[in-house]
């Protein structure tokens, strides 16, 4: 079907991709091996550095005592709740701001300040107001993700091609029609990619919240580990977090791909 040259070209791409993957994999294996070897020959102190073997042991331990999935589950649950709420509220507020230019101008400086404020500083207040429970964690995560969501979606709305708006107006479209037929579809890809940022931001917020209040979750695992000076637990927690955040990111990226290339 294809010419010889094209086949060669495709093969070259495949080989190239394979090499990239192979190198990536080698780097991580090399680092893990090095870590383990340094630990085995007691060149590093495993009490503070832990080691791959210890991490696996800790994982198995967590699995056997049935705690592992509870912690992961709680963190994922909190993230999904905050993510959905954040996306919904962000979307709603962005829409209201676009609808009402006056309000948008009034709110603008507040948004900027809230956006640049390190949200973790609000942690103590949130705990006092909402209590040391899951509510606080979700509020924390919401605060971190929602402002960015509002700003990106609102920006997408305001960057809509003015000529297209003029076209809609030349057909005497009202605001609702402009919103539904032009703004939403034209900022669709923008909205979807804001979700990708949003999911990471939410996870950061959840873990930060768990640091502050919780008795469960991956953030709690890390915090607890550091309090009892169990570095195996801390690093295992970080490792689990890496895996969870990677999986969430790829799920959103996959959905994005599906939606954009329908």
């Amino acid at each position, binding site marked *: 079907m294809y010419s010889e040259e094209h086949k060669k070209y495709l093969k070259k791409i495949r080989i190239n991709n394979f090499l990239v993957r192979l190198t990536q994999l080698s780097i991580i294996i090399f680092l893990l091996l090095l870590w383990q070897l340094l630990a085995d020959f007691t060149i590093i102190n495993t009490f503070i550095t832990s080691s791959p073997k210890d991490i696996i042991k800790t994982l198995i331990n967590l699995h056997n005592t049935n705690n592992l999935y509870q912690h992961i589950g709680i963190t994922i649950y909190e993230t999904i709740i905050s993510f959905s709420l954040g996306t919904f509220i962000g979307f709603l507020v962005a829409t209201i701001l676009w609808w009402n230019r006056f309000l948008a101008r009034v709110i603008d400086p507040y948004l900027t300040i809230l956006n640049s404020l390190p949200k973790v500083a609000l942690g103590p207040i949130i705990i006092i107001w909402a209590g040391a429970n899951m509510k606080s964690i979700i509020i924390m995560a919401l605060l971190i993700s929602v402002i960015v969501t509002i700003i990106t979606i609102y920006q997408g709305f305001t960057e809509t091609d003015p000529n*297209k708006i003029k*076209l809609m107006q030349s057909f*005497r479209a009202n605001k609702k029609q402009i919103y539904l037929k032009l703004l939403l579809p034209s900022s*669709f890809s923008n909205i979807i990619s804001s979700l990708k940022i949003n999911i990471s931001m939410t996870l950061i917020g959840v873990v930060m919240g768990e640091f502050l209040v919780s008795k469960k979750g991956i953030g709690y695992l890390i915090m607890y580990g550091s309090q009892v000076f169990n570095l195996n637990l801390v690093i295992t927690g970080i490792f689990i977090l890496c895996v969870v955040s990677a999986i969430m990111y790829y799920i959103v990226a996959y959905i994005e791909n599906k939606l954009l290339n329908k």
Partner: protein
Amino acid sequence: MNKILSIKNLKKIYHTKQGETLAVDNFSFNLLDGEFVAIVGPSGCGKSTILSILCGLEKKSDGEIKIRDNCKIGYMLQQDSLFNWRTILRNCLLGIEITEDLNDENKQHVINLLETYGLKDFINSYPQNLSGGMRQRVALIRTLATKPDILLLDEPFSALDYQSRLAVSDDVYRIIKSEHKSVIMVTHDIAEAISMADRIIVMTKRPGTIKNIYNIELTNKSTPIENRKAKEFAHYYELIWKDLDFHV
């Protein structure tokens, strides 16, 4: 012939923070049934402003505009602004969706227009797959879909290269004539104006008023490309060129 539109002493002032701009002043003329009028004038003299006011996108500052009862106006903007998430057909249906006139009959009308004017194979394609000239035709059909009686065209061909410009202006002229529309077309291109219009309004520079109006009478008037060969063509060109050349 009957007046379909009459403009009297139209005036437009734009207000911005920097100050006010008198864009159009003392602009009057009548558009007749089925007539094709071209407006030429230096950049910034208020041509687009006049069309925007006629279409209701801008408010006039003063003057009188009378449109015959039940006459609809269709505005074809300079940019085609096709929505690339809609198919060609759905792009063309946009206007009647907005006016909530979308029914089988109107839809069939649009499909017929697309078929008649050479876009049959592209009805379900997306705008990204069309050439500049085709996109311009789609934009025209999108405007025609609302069944306007008066068409306002703002530099409809300026996005095209010279070759397609000639071809598309022929196409568009044919479409407009066979749909029996009255037209006001704004253009920079004197030759384009002479080859298409029945009458040409030449405007002064800002504040735009009417400098001259020419009735274009060509022997063997036919399509725009053929009209360029008429012997009076150069004569009109000369006259309008002189009107526009402000340095003399």
